[in-house]
């Protein structure tokens, strides 16, 4: 068991218990874990984004590795000179002659680079309107991207799935299909905005709500199932780390935290009395 692993086990147990201690009440341990989590995760996702997106997909496409820098001419000669600046700044992150990897050069990504830089223009009040261009790109892209997928799989595919025969396949299947069709159509009617849900419309939309509620109930049931499984997973980890191999991390840290919380609580009550 290496030092890294044992230290890891203790850190794991401490953080697990610290978060769980929230169930008792908001307390210093939870606050430590919460703030650590916010700080670490912000940098974590930033790091992931840099190494998985910016480095290979942006820099990798703007300056892919070239074997023979002498052969460059025209624009690329100047372009790779620019890269040498990065190389000079940090040679191990930006190796000589371009970013290694499997990309081919695609100078359209200069546009992406600028849209990214425009975003940063938000920091400078006089040109912060440039950021709107980047926002506009994002919103336009999202709208165009989602229309097709949702229309295709959420709407048309579901229409296809709802067209079911009512007879000719036995009583059982007829009943089941009827439930599916009535449920889908009446449920859809619930979302009808331009008529008042009164009279016959009110009744249809009522039936629709019942079907929606069954579906919510089922989702709730599944959710409970999933959440309990995850709690089991966490407890299994705590049980694993309570062994002597890890220096009884769980027991010791649990005891320390319970005592601290008790002491803190008593201290507080005395203060209140005073």
């Amino acid at each position, binding site marked *: 068991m290496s030092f890294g692993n044992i230290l890891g086990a203790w850190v794991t147990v401490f953080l697990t218990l610290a978060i769980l201690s929230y169930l008792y009440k908001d307390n210093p341990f939870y606050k430590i874990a919460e703030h650590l989590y916010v700080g670490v995760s912000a940098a974590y996702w930033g790091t992931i984004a840099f190494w998985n997106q910016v480095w290979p997909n942006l820099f990798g496409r703007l300056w892919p590795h070239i074997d023979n820098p002498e052969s460059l001419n025209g624009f690329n000669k100047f372009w790779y000179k620019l890269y040498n600046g990065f190389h000079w700044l940090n040679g191990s992150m930006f190796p000589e002659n371009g970013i290694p990897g499997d990309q081919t050069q695609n100078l359209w990504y200069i546009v992406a680079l600028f849209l*990214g830089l425009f975003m940063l223009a938000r920091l400078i009040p006089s040109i912060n309107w440039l950021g709107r261009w980047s926002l506009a790109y994002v919103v336009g892209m999202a709208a165009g991207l989602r229309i097709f997928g949702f229309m295709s799989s959420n709407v048309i595919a579901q229409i296809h799935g709802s067209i079911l025969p009512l007879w000719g396949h036995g009583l059982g299947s007829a009943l089941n299909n009827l439930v599916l069709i009535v449920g889908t159509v009446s449920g859809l009617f619930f979302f009808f905005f331009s008529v008042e849900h009164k009279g016959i419309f009110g009744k249809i939309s009522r039936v*629709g709500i019942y079907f929606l509620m069954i579906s919510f109930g089922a989702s709730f049931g599944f959710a409970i199932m999933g959440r309990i499984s995850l709690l089991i997973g966490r407890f299994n980890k705590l049980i694993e780390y309570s062994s002597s191999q890890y220096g009884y991390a769980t027991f010791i840290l649990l005891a320390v935290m319970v005592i601290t919380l008790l002491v803190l609580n008593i201290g507080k009550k005395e203060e209140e009395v005073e």
Partner: protein
Amino acid sequence: MILKRYIPLAIVFIVGMTMLASWFIPHAPFGAFEIHATQWFDIIASFAMILGALNLLKVHSLKLIHKKLNWQYSLIAILGFFLTLTFGFIMKGGHYLVLTDVGNTPDAVVQEISTELQLKNNVANNLYITPKIEEGIELKKYYYTQNSAIDFKNRLENVGAIAEVKEVVWGSHLQADNTFFSWLFRNIFTSLSATMFALLAFFVASASYRAFKVRNMEATILLVAGVIIMIGRVPLGVFITNWIPKDSFFSFLRLEILQEWIYQFPNAAGARAIMIGIGLGIVGTSLRVILGIEKSFLGEK
């Protein structure tokens, strides 16, 4: 006005329409547009992260400087932030050996390697696809510190082999074993996110105790469907209605069968209605955005 208002609107329209066209026109330049457009988004988002990070640091530094309530915790957030950046961009860890020569006693070298790498019967299996010895064999065990790697190197050299210590390259340090970043991921990040997720089990229990009331017809239906699914899908549920014979007329009352029916029919119908509604909502909103009918997100003036 043009720069601040009309160009953004034009960008929304052009990008949205091109994106939409790319679904129907496989021909260049539309065909590949989708792949690049989403990557451009990722790139913009990565740049924007700098803004987020600066904002986070600003909020917490202000707390720290003004010694506001709970400022100590802000210090922890800032330290956590910089610790992670250090592991992501400055300190890698992940040292390993490349064996370049096995020397005169290959058996002893193999023995040494298989103990260190905890290999079982077939050493060659795990030494990867045996590259030529001239190129060197990468021994796939990583160490946090250079010293541990040198330690192993010395042991190998004692049995006559020649090896050199290397460090994982930037980029793969995110995922290789025993780098500082992966240590942080495994022990800090994983335990925090998994435990936050596990808290849900408690919340779900208290929510069902507090909110699952048979107030009206809707709530009753939700509750009954939920309870049947919950009990019917675990071993205990099967156990409860085991007394109903499997081939009798009433077999549909067996919990596991009843839950399966609810799940596959009424539930599927309700879910489908919501799905179509959401689909239409998204299509409608997207159309309003692309066509410039909804433009408040760009500011009114």
